[in-house]
Structure formats: C-alpha cells, structure tokens
C-alpha cells in the first residue's frame, strides 16, 4: 500500500496550539507527512485532529487571538509555515483544503474551479479554461458537467458538489491537500467515489485527511495517527495501527470500545 517514494513532504515539530479563549487544543504534536501518501487523523470528537489539520493552511489566522507554538516545516524548501514572517496566503497557495460540508461558491461550476486561478491573477482565458478542465477531470467530475459548466454549482448533488470543491482545490496545483472529514455529509456511493479519488490524487500530491470513519482510514490511508485530548497518541503505517497497535487506547478506539 505504501508508495515507493517515502520522501518527507512536511512535518510538525512540537506543535502547540492555543485558541483565543486560552484552551490548549494541541500538545506538542510531532508528526511526519510523507510525499505522495495519505495520512489519516483519527480520534474522538474534540481530540484536536481538525485543529491540527487547519494549522497546515493557517486557517486559524482568520480568527484573532489564536496562537501557534512550534513548527510545521515543509520540504524540500525547509520553510516553517507557522513562522511569523511567512504569509498565510502564501501557505494557502501551496496547501489547499477540502471541507467537511461541500461549500461551493454561489457561482457557476466553471467559476468555482477557476477562482483559485483568478486569485493568482491568471487572465489568459485559454489557460484558465484548460486548467479548469484538467481539474474537473482530476476530480472525476468532467464527464458529468462538461456540457453545463455555466450552471450554478448548487444545482449539483452533494457528492458532485464535494468533487467540485476538490476540483477547486486541485486547480492551483497544490503540494498538499487537506481533507476535513470530506465524506461525513455524503451517502455511501458518493463516499466511495471520493475515497477512490483520493487514492488517485496521491500520485500527484500529498494528502492529510481527518476522518471519523475507521473503515475509511483503513481503506484509503497509508499512515494513520491517533489523537486524543490534543496529543498524538500513536502514529504508524495504517496496517500496523489497525492490526497491531502498540497502545491500549488506540486499540480500544479502533475496535469501538471507546469514543
């Protein structure tokens, strides 16, 4: 299951995170992200997995008072993306995100995918159209929408909307893609589509996914991290975590005895 290349794409080093109300949501989390692999974050609600994920694109910067300590280093350039001098917008240009509920803009299908390019100042219509097509193909949506790209995005079904959001995140050639429980609002068939898509996408980029669904983590991920109360309890390749976890807590959670 593990891809041949296991170069390090990013890693968090002793990452602490504090919300503006003073709550410490992450406690010294150190974890690698391997290139062209899918890393899954599992754990009970409130364990900090979404908080951890949202550190990677500095989403917490949108709300005043949140504070990071420690580092998230991206390779090969060794940039600490949490450093004060690094613009969160630059980080978001390299690391894109797919959210829990499909959140397309109330714009056309085409404009949804094109928005990332527009933000980057791409004016050439040909380039934009090509990129949009490429992204829609990459998100396995092209065949369903190629003849109605000017339709409003909310006319699509929930599963299609989520693939549209993946296309939007894909159009700008990100190095890492973050998925925050991407299938929790979808039916089983749409979920299977998204999972299949993620497995294909990892050939192009690195994926970090938060999931509440144990089977999903087992099915799609190469590495799994179990978090609890803001701490990284256990990290390893997915097979090991699911078959021979070293910690009792991990086993209890995975087998459904807890959480």
């Amino acid at each position, binding site marked *: 299951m593990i891809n041949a290349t296991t170069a390090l794409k990013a890693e968090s080093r002793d990452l602490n995170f504090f919300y503006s109300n003073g709550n410490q949501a992450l406690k010294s989390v150190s974890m690698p992200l391997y290139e062209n692999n899918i890393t899954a974050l599992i754990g009970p609600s409130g364990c900090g997995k979404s908080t951890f994920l949202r550190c990677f*694109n500095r*989403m917490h910067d*949108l709300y*005043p008072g949140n504070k990071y300590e420690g580092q998230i280093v991206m390779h090969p350039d060794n940039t600490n993306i949490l450093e004060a001098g690094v613009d969160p*917008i*630059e980080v*978001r*240009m390299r690391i*894109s*995100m797919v*959210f829990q*509920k499909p*959140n*397309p*803009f*109330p714009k056309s299908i085409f404009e949804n995918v094109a*928005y*990332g390019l*527009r*933000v*980057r100042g791409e004016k050439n219509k040909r380039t934009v159209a090509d990129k949009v097509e490429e992204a829609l193909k990459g998100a396995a949506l092209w065949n369903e929408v190629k003849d109605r790209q000017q339709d*409003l995005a*909310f006319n699509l079904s929930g599963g299609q909307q989520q693939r549209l*959001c993946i296309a*939007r*995140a894909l159009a*700008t050639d990100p190095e890492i893609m973050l998925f925050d429980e991407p299938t929790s609002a979808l039916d089983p068939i749409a979920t299977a589509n998204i999972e299949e898509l993620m497995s294909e996408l990892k050939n192009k980029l690195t994926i970090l996914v938060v999931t509440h669904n144990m089977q999903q983590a087992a099915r799609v991920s190469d590495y799994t991290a179990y978090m609890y109360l803001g701490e990284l309890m256990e990290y390893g390749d997915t097979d090991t975590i699911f078959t021979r976890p070293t910690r009792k807590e991990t086993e209890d959670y995975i087998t459904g005895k807890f959480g």
Partner: protein
Amino acid sequence: MTSESLKTKVAVLENLDVVRAMIRRHKRSDIIFAAVGLLALMLGLLTLLTLFLDLVMDGYPRFNLTFFSEFPSRRAANAGLLSAWVGSVLVMIVTFLTAVPMGVAAGLYLEEYAPKNWFSDLIEINVSNLAGVPSIIYGLLALGLFIYGLGLGESILTAGLTLGLLTLPVVIVSTREAIRGIPVAIREAAYAVGATKWQVVKDHVVKYSQGGILTGVIIGMSRAIGETAPIITIGALTFIAFLPPSPISEVAPFINFEWLGSGFTVLPIQMFNWLSRPDHAFATNAAATGAIIIVVTLMMNGTAIYLRYKIRKNIKW
C-alpha cells in the same frame, strides 16, 4: 373474548373519545388565534387602504398630466407638481450618491476589517441608535453643518446630504446584516484557495450581500423621499416656479453641477404648503400629492422585494 379484555377495549375506546375531544378543543384555539391575527393584520391594512382611497378620491380631479407639468400657482386648479417632483428626484440622486457608497463602505469596514473591541461595540450601538434619531435633529445638524458651517446654502446639495445622513444608518445596518448572512464556510473556502481579504470582500462578500444591501438602500430612500421636517429646517422654499439648471447640458462636458446649488422644493413640502393654504381648493392638490407619495413609496418597496427575490434566487448555500 374474556370480560377482562373486553373491558380494556371499552376503556381504550372511551379514552380515544377523550383524546379526540381534546384535539378538537386545541384546534379551536388554533382557529381563534388565526382569527385574532387576521383581524390585527386587517386593521392595519384597512386603515392604510382607507387613508389611501380617501386621498385618491379627494385628489381625483388633479390626476392628469398637467398636474405633473405645471408649476405651483395661486389658482389651485392650475397649480402643479413640476418643481416638486423634479426637486424630489434631484435630491434623491444626491442622497443615493452619498448614502450608498458611504453606508456600504462603513458597513463593510465594521463587519470585515474593524477589530472587535469595546470601541467597535460603542460604534455599533451608536449606528443602531442613529437610525432612530428623530429626523428634525438631522435637520438641525444640517442647518449648523452644511448651511452655516460649510456655506452650501438652502440648496439641493444640502437637502440631498441631509437626507443622505438620515439614510446612512439604515444602509449601514442592512449592509452589516446582509454580510452576516454569508456563511463562514463560504469565506473559509475563499481564503483556503489563497484569496486576500480584499479579494474575499470584492469577489464574495459584496456580491452575495448585494440583495440585502439594495433592499436596505431602497427602504432607506423610500423613507427619505417622504421626509418633511429636516427639509423645512434647512429652509426649503415652498413656492418655486422654476426648475433647477439641467444636469445635462448641450455643450461639452455635457454635464454640469449648477443644479446642486439651486433652490428647490420637494413633494412633501409642496403638499404641506398646499395644506396650509386657507383656500380649500388647494386641499385637493394636497390630497393628490399625498396619494402620489404613497404610490411612489409602495413602488420603491415593491422594487426592493422584487430585486431581493431575484438576487436571492441565484444564491444558495
């Protein structure tokens, strides 16, 4: 069947009757409340309708084109609204051009850029409060500021700015409400692809809140068009038998701003003037003007509802 189970069956049936009686009783309250509600609604609507019909019937003799194309006159039958409706239109243009950009910019700033602290809370309270300040206070402010302070005179510009101030809080409040209606998920989606704050504001926030802002603007303007007190305070003339210079001229640059400095009257002032005449024939003119003001207001509010519906149709989250 044993007598025991028969008894329970009877009990169940009797119980069912009790339940049905109870449901009937509850439904009666439903009907009573609906009737009271309808009555309350009708009282309000019918009062307005009666007033409107009364105005229409009183003013009926004046509903013809000459009423709109004639200047005021000493003879009631010849007196028209020309200077008043032209004045109203010009004043509204100034009001629109000042209240909308300032109100939208202020609302955007407060919602998107201003840090949230005690100071912004204070501003928030004041803005909401401003919307409720009696309009005559605005008139006094305008008299002091625009006429004595800035020397703008008893002009269309002064009136437009005064009504602009009056409309401003309504625009600010409706802008903020429209912006608050945009889900966090949509903002985060925009930021997540690398948009700057300004890109988010210009490509998303403003676009999606247009309907709400527009509604607020029109409702604010429809209030302003009927305002009388502040216009009297700043000294609007009541008998005007001339038109301000045309904003569009025949020679380059085809546009001039002389009209801004012109004396003027507006519909409610003209109506007030006619009402205060001892000659009863002028009451007909006043009634006709009143009916026209109501129709204009209704049309503006109708447009607001239509535009909101049309814009909302294309925005769902």
